[in-house]
Every structure is written in structure tokens, then in C-alpha cells.
């Protein structure tokens, strides 16, 4: 089994496909979920897809500087900060409107 895995360890295309799939799931969630918290979760998935992308390229690149891993760490930190702000906004919205249904947040309609 180990050998099988070693012989068939996934290459760059497989990893990138995984990234695209993750990103698309996030985007789909962002555009379709009505719950604001669910949308924030979808954004997290998209951010993690991007972070994974960095790590994948770092793993397959020739130089051994670990730049991509550093960037992935940055993305994680930034995502944490972003979710703090996003959740604060959602909580404020909930207090004001009594709901987090994004379809009812349409006071900017033309």
C-alpha cells in the first residue's frame, strides 16, 4: 500500500486540480448560500485553496527557499483577522436586523 502510494504519489496536476476544486466549492458557496455565516465559511474555503496553491508550488519548485510556505502562513494569519472583522459585522447586522439572511440586506437596491 505504502509502495503503491509511493509509486503513485500525486504530481503537480493532481494537486492543482484539488486547489481548483476547493476554490470552486468556496465560490459556489459564496454565491449561493443565503446565510452570511455560511458565506464567510465559503470565503475561508477559497482562502485555504489559495494557501494550498502556494504550498504546492513551493513543494514542486526547484529552489528550496520555502517562500510559498511563508506565504501560506501569512494567508492563515490574514484569514483569521478577516474572519474576526467579518463575524463582527455579521453580529452587528444580526443585532440590527434580527436575521443574517443576506437576501434581506438589499437596502441599496436601485
Amino acid at each position, binding site marked *: 500500500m505504502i509502495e503503491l502510494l509511493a509509486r503513485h504519489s500525486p504530481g503537480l496536476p493532481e494537486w492543482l486540480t484539488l486547489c481548483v476544486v476547493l476554490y470552486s466549492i468556496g465560490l459556489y458557496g459564496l454565491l*449561493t448560500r443565503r446565510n452570511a455565516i455560511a458565506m464567510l465559511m465559503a470565503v475561508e474555503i477559497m482562502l485555504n485553496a489559495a494557501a494550498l496553491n502556494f504550498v504546492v508550488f513551493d513543494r514542486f519548485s526547484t529552489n528550496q527557499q520555502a517562500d510559498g510556505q511563508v506565504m501560506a502562513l501569512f494567508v492563515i494569519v490574514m484569514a483569521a483577522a478577516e474572519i474576526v472583522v467579518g463575524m463582527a459585522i455579521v453580529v452587528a447586522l444580526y443585532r440590527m436586523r434580527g436575521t443574517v439572511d443576506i437576501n434581506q440586506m*438589499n437596502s441599496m437596491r436601485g
Partner: protein
Amino acid sequence: MDGDSGWMMQHAWLIPALPLVSFAVVGLLISPYWKKGAGVIATLSIVASMVCAYVLAWEYFTLYPAGGEHPILVPWSFEWLRYQPGLAANVGVLVDPISLLLMIVVTTVSALVHIYSNAYMHGDYGFGRYFTFLNLFTFSMLGLVVAPDIIQMYVCWELVGVSSFLLIGFYYNKPSAVAASKKAFIVTRFADLGFLVGVLLLSFYGYRIFPDWSAEVGAVANGLAGTQPVDFQYLNDPVFLAKFAALDTTFLGISLLTLSMCLVFMGAAGKSAMFPLHIWLPDAMEGPTPVSALIHAATMVVAGVYLVARLFPAFAFSGTAALLVAYVGAFTSLFAAVIGTTQDDIKRVLAFSTLSQLGYMMLALGVSTAEHTLGYTASMFHLFTHAFFKALLFMGAGAVIHAVHTNSIWEMGGLWRKMPITHITFLVATLAISGIWPFAGFFSKDEILAAALGSGHYVIFGVAVLVAGLTAFYMFRIYFVTFWGKGRGAGAAHAHEAPALMWMPMALLAVLSAVTGFFPMAEYVHLGEAEGHHGINLAVVIPATLFALIGIAMAASLYIGDGHRAVALAKMLGSVHQTIKQKFYIDEVYLFITHRIIFHRIARPIAWFDKRMVDGGVDASGWATRSGGRALSLLQTGQVQTYGLWFTGGVAFVVLILWSALV
């Protein structure tokens, strides 16, 4: 200026400035709080200005005694408007015999009218406003008279127009007065359009010719360095006129000099109410009577005559323009005199008489030439005497109207017993205007007739003699009807003599009307060599006096008694009489032209075009923007996920394009 000119000469600006200051002070500070004081202060300022004018005249004629050279002085001026280097308009005071003459006439008549008005307007609801406007008028008129250049003349010209408008419409709650003031303003403004184009032509070509001129006359060496292309001294200069007339550019075959002079004359004709721009003056009688005496008889309406006199060398050089002046003047004097014989309103008769006399002054200017300048002197002489006797006639009419409370002569009658002073002064003025020796009108008319005869314009001479007869006829008609016979109306029965403040100025004017004829005008006002008083020319005196006496006799036979002969004569003339009484239907012609042709055929299509095409175009662009915005706003759903979808689609689209371009 030079050391030996007197104090008044250096402070000549005081003459127009005093009424201006008093206008501001009375209008802003005094008249709202102290009605009586407004009249007193306004009157005092004009009296002060009058004294200044007398002192100035005395100083000028001490420096340049009668009979000698009379140079044009500009003792005080400053640059007011600089259009560009070499073209600036000055504001200043020009002193020469005719400006002094006008200053004296304006300040004297204005002071007397102010005094008279204190009594006449007593208790009127606009007492303070009245004196404010009267001061404004006097300032503007004096500014016009002393103008050293045509720009100041034009500015003050419009100022007298607006003060005339304000005073005609003084009783602003009376619809006929409002209509009359609008009519006066529009007609004179229309004429001023011509004047303005004339001013523009003169200053444009004046500016172009100016460098040539100053090289030729040696302007700097001769002390003319400060001359501007709009100054009258330059515009009247023979060298300039010769260059201007010799320009190749012509308009419809007439030279630019003649064209610009004709345009200037159009402005003068509007202000002096020459045919066919005369229609505003009879209606202007809606204003208070002292205003008619001051503005519409003695001073403002002679502004046109003064303008022509001021530019006389230019008119004379053109020749054609002078002829136009002569014939328009002669026609107006006859036309207005004929209408004057039929009017029933005492002030309207006097208004038509003013028109007729202004025509006289114009024709005198028109017949004189650069060599034969008697007409110039005669015109100024008649302006001088006419101002006194016509102001007196209006003041007399005002006193009568004040006593009888009607304007119609047929409701007056028998007033000589009740108003003896008014009667005597009115009789003096009537004799003066009829040209009976030894009253003032005799001498000035005599000089005009002599000028017309001497210049060889026999038709104009004939017209003028005929008009002299008509003048005597219509003046004695109103005199007999008003003062003789029995009182016809309720007002006439209860008439009383005017108060002293009214009859004293009248008495003074009566003295002036009686004696100013002996003033040796030719010694003071002349161009070139003084021609001297030509003495009594029997060829002129006999027909003029004969016609005047015939006129008086006809008036006496028709209107002394119950006037049944006049009624019978009117009935016999039938439609002719009716046409004359309706002023030859000129007003109706104007109404037809303005309403039926201009309003209906021109203004209405233009209004339609403006409303539908211009406004419609603007509205359409507004509508398109608004509805476009509304359509686009449908995209703004307010749903953040819709925006996200559009954004994602957009990014995908851009990526696709970049990808297809790069791969």
C-alpha cells in the same frame, strides 16, 4: 488747468455732482423719514447747482468776452474706462458756450420746477420719491450737457431716459401712466439702438483713423496729447472728418460718416420726439405736470437738439445727414402743429406744441452749414427761449389743473377772473410762443426763419412760416377756451389762485419769457466768426407776424363765445377733422405693426420654435438621461450575491480574453 481760470472753472464738476449727492442723500436717508425735508433739500441742492452754473458762465465769459473766440475747454476730467491702449473714455466737464447755455437752462428751469413742485405735489403719497427722481433727472441731464466725449453722453442719455420713465410712471397705480411710461421707454430705447450703433461706428473708425490724425495735426506738439478717439473735439475735427468721409468702405452707397450721423440722429430723434418716433411724448403727459414742464418741455427733449448741435461740424460735413435733420424737423413741426389744433386735453396741446417747436430747432440746425452757421445760433437761441416759455405754459397748465381738477379745456373757462396771476403769465407765454414782438419767441423764431430763408431752403421756410401761424392759432385756442368765456364745469366755478410757491416761479419765468429775446445770443453762441445780430429782416418778420396775427384772429373768431362756429367748422371738415384729432392714426399704425406683424408673424413663430425646439431639445436630453438612469438602476439589486456573480463572470471573461490572446 491754467493759472488764471477761476475757482468755479476748476470745480465745474460741482454742477452735476450736487444733484447727484442730493439724489443719494434724499432718496436713501431723508425721504423715508422726513417728507417735507426731502423737498427742501432737493430744491436747495438744485439752487446751489444753479448758482454754480451762473458763476461758471460769468468766469468763462470774463476770460473769453462776448463776440470773440470761444474755445472748448475741458477743465476737469479723469480716465474712466480704458478699453485698450489708445482708446479710453473720460468722464469730465466740457465748458463751451452751448454747454453753458444748457447748464443755465437746465439748472434754472429745474430749480423753478423744484420750488413749484413743493406746492404742487403737497400731500401726495410719493412726495419724497418724486423729489428723489427729480434730482436724479437733473444730475443725468447735467452730466449729459457737460459730457466731453460721446461715451459719457450715451451713459447720461440713458440715465435721463430712465428718470423720464420713472417720472412718467410716477402714479404707478394708474394703468394709463404705467402704459405711457413703458411706451416712452421702449420707443426711446429703440431709437437709442440707432444711437448706440452710431457711437460704435464712430469710435471704431475714430480709433482707426486716430494715429493718422495725430501725426497730421501734430497732436502732441499742439497740446492735444490727452485727446481720446471718442472725444467730441476729435470727432468734430475737420481733419478727422475728411479722413472719415474719404474711407472707401460704404454702406448701400452712402458714406460711413453720413451713415453714422444718421444713426446718431435716430437717437436724437427718439429723445426729441421727431416724427415718426414722436408717439411717446403726448402720452408722457400722464406724469405729474411739473415733470412735463421740466423733462418733456424744457430740458430732456432738447437733449436730441443738443446732441445734433454738439456734433454739428460732423453733421455739416456730411451734408446729407444735415438735410435729413432739416426735413425731419420741418415735417415734425408742421405735423405736430396740425394735430395740436384739435386736441382737447390742455397738456396734450402743449405736448404737440413742444414737438412742433423741437422740429423748429432741428430744422434750424439742419439748414445751417459750415459756412452759414446762423441756424446753429438760432436753434440754440430758440432752445433757450422755448425752455422758459414752454416751462411756464406747463406750469400755468399745472396751476389750472390743480385748481379745476380736469385736463379737458372744455370743462374750464372764465378762469382769468379767478386766477389773475396764472392768467397773465400764461398770456405772456402764449404771446412768446406765438412770436409776437417784443416777447422772446419773436426773436428766436425770427432768427430761425432768417436762417431758413438765407440758406435757400424756401420750402422749409414756407413750412416754418405756416407753422408759426398754426402755433399762434392753437395756443390762442386753448388760451381763449381756458381763460375767457363762462366757467363750463363744476371745477371751474370753484377755482382759486395758485399758492405763492407756485405762482412765484411762474412770474419769474414770465419775466424771462418776456425779455430773453433781447439777449444778444449771436455774440455768445456761434461757430467761427460771429455773424452779429442780423437786425430786423422785413422779408422774414412781415410774413411771420402776419401769419401769427391771422392765427390769433382765427382762434378769436372761432373760440371766443360759445364756440358754435368751431363745432360747425369741425362738422364741415368731417373725416379730415377726425383724422387730425386721432393724430393721423399713427398710434394705430404702430399698434398694427407691433401687434399684427411683429408679434403675430415674427414673435409667435419664434416663441413656438423656442418652446418646442430649443426647450424641447433641452427637455429631451434631460428625459433621455433620466430614463437611461432609471433603466440602468434596475441592475442595482442590492443583493451582494448578484454583484458577486457579475464580478466573477467579469473576471472569468477577462481571463478568457487574456488567455486566448497569450496562448
